[in-house]
């Protein structure tokens, strides 16, 4: 009789059960970055003194990690900015691992050194490192990153990960002037040992998370992939229709005036670079974040988050459209993104509305002239869609 069982990844589900107060935590170690990517929603300059002064110190990060582990947390994501900019990164990383957490690291890999690669090889994170790639040559990469020489440093970092056999995956932004690089990027990604699927792309770029740069917002908005091209990218996935059949059968429908419909803050939590607990990373409105210098993580999750999640929509335009729209679930509309785009929690976001409608038309759920919030027979349409496509995939 075997006493010890090796758990396969699909058996990790119990680690995210409803009885665990906190299964996963995202920690933004810094907003500072050594890149200045044209599409980035959060980056601050690498040596920004204001950010440096306010960042969580090592002891606060460790306290938060310890609290998280005591609440059952199994996975921590370190993100930024560029988390490797933190001088105490190795210390924080090992601390998290010694708490028995698996670590997901988001990085541009420019700061991977032999010492760090050796650390990851000796003490593996337990999950693949996720490396963002901004082009396949200096000509493209350095334009996106805004930093001369950044491509070469990125390649050196990735080469070290390969040399030390540290598992990683790659992903990138879908920018129109990177189209020529896309084939080369995907061909290169296939050579990476731990890549078992095509790389993921970000394309519906978020505006500035702290609403701090209107000029950059205008530039980001121009870089966003059109709704039609977004749907074309979705349709590249051979399982797209099958996934939509499963999704539409279970998650589509008008939400009413309830604003927080996702799982944000339920079993998960995000911590910004300054020690504030947030339901999710974009949700930074000051009356929705909790200062962990003053309140425990447990209290934030048990008391503050449920209270925030009870917020209802009041904007008449939201109540006329989003509250009645059966595409809720397909649409990226949410209070966090509404705050980022408009400074309120309940303003319909036109860009995401157009994408959701483009998807619905592609799937045959809507005709060209229809607005989803005016459709009364949506249940019949979804049922027909599921029936017609149930044999697909």
């Amino acid at each position, binding site marked *: 009789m075997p006493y*010890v069982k090796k758990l396969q990844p699909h058996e990790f589900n*119990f680690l995210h059960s409803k009885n665990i107060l906190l299964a996963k935590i995202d920690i933004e170690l810094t907003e500072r970055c050594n890149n200045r990517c044209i599409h980035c929603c959060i980056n601050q300059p690498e040596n920004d003194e204001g950010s440096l002064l306010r960042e969580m110190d090592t002891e606060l990060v460790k306290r938060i990690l310890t609290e998280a582990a005591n609440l059952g947390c199994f996975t921590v994501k370190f993100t930024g900015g560029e988390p490797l900019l933190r001088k105490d990164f190795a210390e924080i990383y090992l601390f998290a691992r010694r708490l028995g957490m698996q670590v997901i690291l988001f990085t541009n890999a420019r700061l991977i050194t032999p010492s760090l690669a050796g650390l990851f090889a000796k003490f593996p994170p337990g999950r693949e490192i996720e490396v963002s790639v901004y082009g396949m040559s200096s000509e493209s990469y350095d334009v996106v990153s805004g930093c001369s020489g950044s491509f070469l440093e990125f390649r050196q970092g990735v080469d070290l990960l390969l040399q030390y056999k540290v598992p990683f995956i790659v992903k990138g932004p879908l920018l129109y002037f990177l189209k020529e690089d896309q084939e080369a990027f995907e061909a290169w990604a296939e050579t990476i040992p731990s890549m078992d699927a095509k790389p993921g792309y970000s394309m519906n770029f978020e505006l500035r998370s702290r609403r701090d740069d209107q000029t950059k917002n205008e530039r980001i908005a121009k870089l966003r992939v059109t709704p039609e091209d977004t749907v074309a990218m979705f349709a590249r996935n051979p399982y797209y229709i099958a996934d939509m059949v499963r999704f539409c059968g279970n998650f589509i429908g008008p939400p009413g005036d309830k604003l927080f419909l996702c799982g944000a803050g339920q079993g998960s939590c995000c911590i910004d670079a300054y020690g504030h607990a947030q339901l999710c990373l974009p949700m930074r409105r000051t009356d929705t974040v909790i200062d962990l210098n003053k309140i425990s993580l447990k209290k934030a999750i048990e008391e503050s988050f449920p209270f925030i999640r009870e917020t209802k929509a009041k904007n008449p335009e939201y109540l006329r459209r989003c509250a009645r729209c059966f595409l809720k679930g397909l649409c990226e509309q949410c209070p966090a993104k509404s705050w980022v785009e408009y400074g309120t929690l309940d303003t319909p976001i036109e860009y995401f509305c157009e994408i959701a409608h483009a998807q619905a038309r592609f799937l045959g759920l809507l005709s060209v002239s229809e607005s989803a919030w005016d459709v009364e027979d949506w249940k019949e349409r979804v049922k027909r869609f599921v029936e017609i496509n149930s044999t697909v995939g």
Partner: protein
Amino acid sequence: MDIKPSSIFMPSEDVVARVIEDELIIVPLVAGIGDSNDELYTMNETGKAIWLRLDGKKTLSDIAVELSHEFNADIDMIEHDVLGLMEELTSRKIVVGQE
């Protein structure tokens, strides 16, 4: 190291044991434990009861006696389980023997 009733074992420093929802999870910290670096291990109830007694001081025989009293079970059967578990755990480098 031979696995005998008089042997003493303790958890390796290269793993972390966590109890999540009553489930004992063994998280490898270093490379080389298990077949790949993203694996986790869990134990059945017998394994968990034995693991929680591995303190680097008690012999495997001591542990078997404790468990046979606690669960009112046959000492030979318990000792068989204890030795069997140690074989599995040492093969995966999850425990280390004390000389």
